[in-house]
């Protein structure tokens, strides 16, 4: 194999991913002396304070709710025994399949003044009966918390399963009851993982565009979008994007801190069958009721509502144009998944044994994109490609946009954001190909081609499949990048959801949303299957 090309690969990939960020920085630095300062002054005076406060309140509130729900449910399903525990252990992950913007429009549609639930309640209790308005700060926090608690649930559950029961036994032998043992030993031990899950929730909340749009709740992402499409001010959007990046960096730094502490505790391998605390009688049924309520609100009821509305509009909406949305969505998702996979495999080959510090650092940069909110990436991609286009025009003459507003721009954004998603399972596969395995194969007569076909491919297989699936589904759900960089006419299912919800056409948004949720079930199924297998192997 040529030695130079795999060395250069990571650097090029890192450059690709970093380009949108670099473009934002360069544009802001350049634009600080620009002409749009009047608009920016207006923005700082009237918009910035509100948007910042909104974003901060939202993040704190959503993280609090998600941490409370996720941790308590994780403890119940990992450390306790109650009716239905085995079912809820995986069922409580299903809300992961429901994008926050879908849950948001279902909530608004059913709980708003004219929605089905308040109407029914007025029917029972009389016309004077009022429910708290869903279109409120509390409402958006509750919906995003419900949509994102599975991140905390997943991490905390893993921590509780590995050492929860054992340390609880140790605590009991030292005279702690189950409750004080939980609060003083199990939860503090799991705190790094809970914090890790909470950090993920914070990142998702910062990046959320679709759900807050449904609620008309202005955050940085919607402000960026409005600056872009409402004010046609790229400079303003760039400035806002940079500020949002600051928030992201803060959360990333906090997450690093939490993970640093997780290292010492991770050594414990939970190979033992966990001992669970039995919750007898009423307490068991209370636990069951709590889990049922979260499961119903987070998945069952919204899914049923979607199905009903979708059935209602299907005869009208399900035409050739609709098939076009689906095909375009699938094509984009497949292209992005293949591109991410190819880059992840190239990174894997370049950074395995014997690679120097430069490819490794580049690989880290190349996988940072997942932390960048889609709205920010979109702005970065457009200005980066705009710069390239301008350079091209200056160089070759002629007019028009060569890259901006093409599928290339869209894929560029997807790859920058989702490369990390593909990279993790692929690198997991590479980690399984130890040098000794290759030497063993070579001592048995395998040449380079056989190494790839008989050793690398089979060992990478599962990781490759996972990588493709995860990126595919993430691209299907993706909203802001698609919305802001798509070529004319390239509407995806997520764009359709956005457009319908923007017009309050909840029922017509249900059909594309249902397809997205169905696709989202695939990775959740994969995850639960892995969890089951790990549990059986233990």
């Amino acid at each position, binding site marked *: 194999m040529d030695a130079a090309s795999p060395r250069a690969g990571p650097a090029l990939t890192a450059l690709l991913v970093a380009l949108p960020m670099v473009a934002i920085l360069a544009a802001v630095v350049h634009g600080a002396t620009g002409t749009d300062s009047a608009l920016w002054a207006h923005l700082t005076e009237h918009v910035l304070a509100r948007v910042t406060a909104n974003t901060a309140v939202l993040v704190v509130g959503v993280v609090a709710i998600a941490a409370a729900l996720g941790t308590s449910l994780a403890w119940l399903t990992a450390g306790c025994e109650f009716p239905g525990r085995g079912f809820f252990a995986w069922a409580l992950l299903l809300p992961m399949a429901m994008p926050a913007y879908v849950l948001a429009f279902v909530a608004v549609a059913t709980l708003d003044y004219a929605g089905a639930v308040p109407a029914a309640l007025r029917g029972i209790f009389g016309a004077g009966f009022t429910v708290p308005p869903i279109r409120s700060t509390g409402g958006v926090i509750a919906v995003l918390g419900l949509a994102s608690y599975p991140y905390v649930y997943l991490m905390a559950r893993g921590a509780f399963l590995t050492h929860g029961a054992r340390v609880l036994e140790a605590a009991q032998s030292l005279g702690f009851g189950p409750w004080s043992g939980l609060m003083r030993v199990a939860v503090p031990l799991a705190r790094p993982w809970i914090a890790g899950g909470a950090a993920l929730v914070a990142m998702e909340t910062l990046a959320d565009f679709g759900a807050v749009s449904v609620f008309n709740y202005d955050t940085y992402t919607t402000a960026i979008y409005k600056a872009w499409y409402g004010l046609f001010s790229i400079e303003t959007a760039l400035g806002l994007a940079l500020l949002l990046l600051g928030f992201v960096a803060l959360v990333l730094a906090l997450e690093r801190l939490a993970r640093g502490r997780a290292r010492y505790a991770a050594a414990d391998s939970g190979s033992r069958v966990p001992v669970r605390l039995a919750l007898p009688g009423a307490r068991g049924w209370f636990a069951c009721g709590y889990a049922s309520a979260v499961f119903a609100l987070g998945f069952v009821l919204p899914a049923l509502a979607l199905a009903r509305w979708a059935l209602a509009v299907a005869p009208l909406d399900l035409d050739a144009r609709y098939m076009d949305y689906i095909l375009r969505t699938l094509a984009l998702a497949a292209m992005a998944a293949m591109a991410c996979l190819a880059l992840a495999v190239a990174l894997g080959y370049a950074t395995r044994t014997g690679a120097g510090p430069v490819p490794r650092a580049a690989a880290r940069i190349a996988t940072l994109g997942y932390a960048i909110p889609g709205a920010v990436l979109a702005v970065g991609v457009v200005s980066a490609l705009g710069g390239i286009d301008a350079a091209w025009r200056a160089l070759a003459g002629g007019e028009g946009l060569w890259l901006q507003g093409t599928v290339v721009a869209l894929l560029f954004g997807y790859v920058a954001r989702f490369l990390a998603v593909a990279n993790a399972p692929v690198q997991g596969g590479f980690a399984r190909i130890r040098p000794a395995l290759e030497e*063993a194969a*070579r*001592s048995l007569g395998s040449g380079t081609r056989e190494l790839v076909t008989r050793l690398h491919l089979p060992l990478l297989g599962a990781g490759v499949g996972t990588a493709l699936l995860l990126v595919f589904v993430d691209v299907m759900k993706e909203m802001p990048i698609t919305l802001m960089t798509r070529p004319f006419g390239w509407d995806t299912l997520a764009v359709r959801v956005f457009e319908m919800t923007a017009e309050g056409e909840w029922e017509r948004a249900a059909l594309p949303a249902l397809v997205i949720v169905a696709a989202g079930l695939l990775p959740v199924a994969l995850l639960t299957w892995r969890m089951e297998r790990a549990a059986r192997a233990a």
Partner: protein
Amino acid sequence: MRLELREVSRAFPGVAAVDRLSLVVGAGRLGCLLGPSGSGKTTVLRLIAGFEQPDAGEVYAGGKLLSGAGRWVPPERRRIGMVFQDFALFPHLDAAANVAFGLRDADAGTRRRRAAELLELVGLAAEAKRMPHELSGGQQQRVALARALAPRPHLVLLDEPFSNLDADVRMELAQQLRAALVAEGATVLLVTHDQREAFAISDEIGVMRAGRLEQWDAPWALYHSPATRFVADFVGEGTFIQGTVLGPGRVSTELGVIEGQLTSEQATGTLVDLLLRPDDVIHDDASVLRAEVVERVFRGAEFRYQLRLPSGAVVLSFVPSHHDHAIGERIGIRLDTQHLVGFSRT
């Protein structure tokens, strides 16, 4: 197939891992490299297998040049079987498929038969369909051996084949391993830091130190006539007492004049350090020679006593365990030596 290394050297940044090493393992013989960790044993194996290239010197197998003098046969074309320290079984293949991995030119039926034959040979016929993670360490080791033997290599290399196994299964496995290797008629070179493994398997053993071969000999000769002080120390237990050579086969010591064949010629009058193995020192109540018990280890059938001589020198002795003596007691000893191993004092 005869294996020969001629003046092979391989340096890594800062260390000469292998330093002008030459050795010959005759066709069908079981050779062994014994040495402390870091002595370069594994590097020698990797040079023979072709995972490393020598800086100087040549590697021959069956008279054919594999490495050196500008020539380098890649590992996949050497037909040298290798058993790795951590076994390196392919995690995605079951035991039978692991064994059949190297049988690429045979048809499916032949592959299946050969894999079954080898699993039978290593006593794992019933485990053919098990995945590597479902096998115990000892079973994985035997699959790794069967896999290395399957393509009928002329030469088999084993890198610390027992180091990942429990002590109580090692000896039994070593015997099985030897039987399987002899049955296949392969020439073998193994590497270990455990002399009991080396003794159990090998026809010939080379003791390595800092990249060089100190001695290449049969196990018995290595124990009874070590060529260097290092070999004497490293192989078996023993201590040195001082003596003076009186003439051929006679050495004067504080335990009297000792007679026996000196393994290396020493001029009369030379001051020597004389090696005494624990089995050279016999407990005898009737003896006038007395030594003080300074430490004792009960080993079931026998005690291993550390005895201090009047000069302060310490010797070891294995004594049947009904001779129970307390620390501080002075007991009678006599010597029973056939070979005298003495190194002139410098």
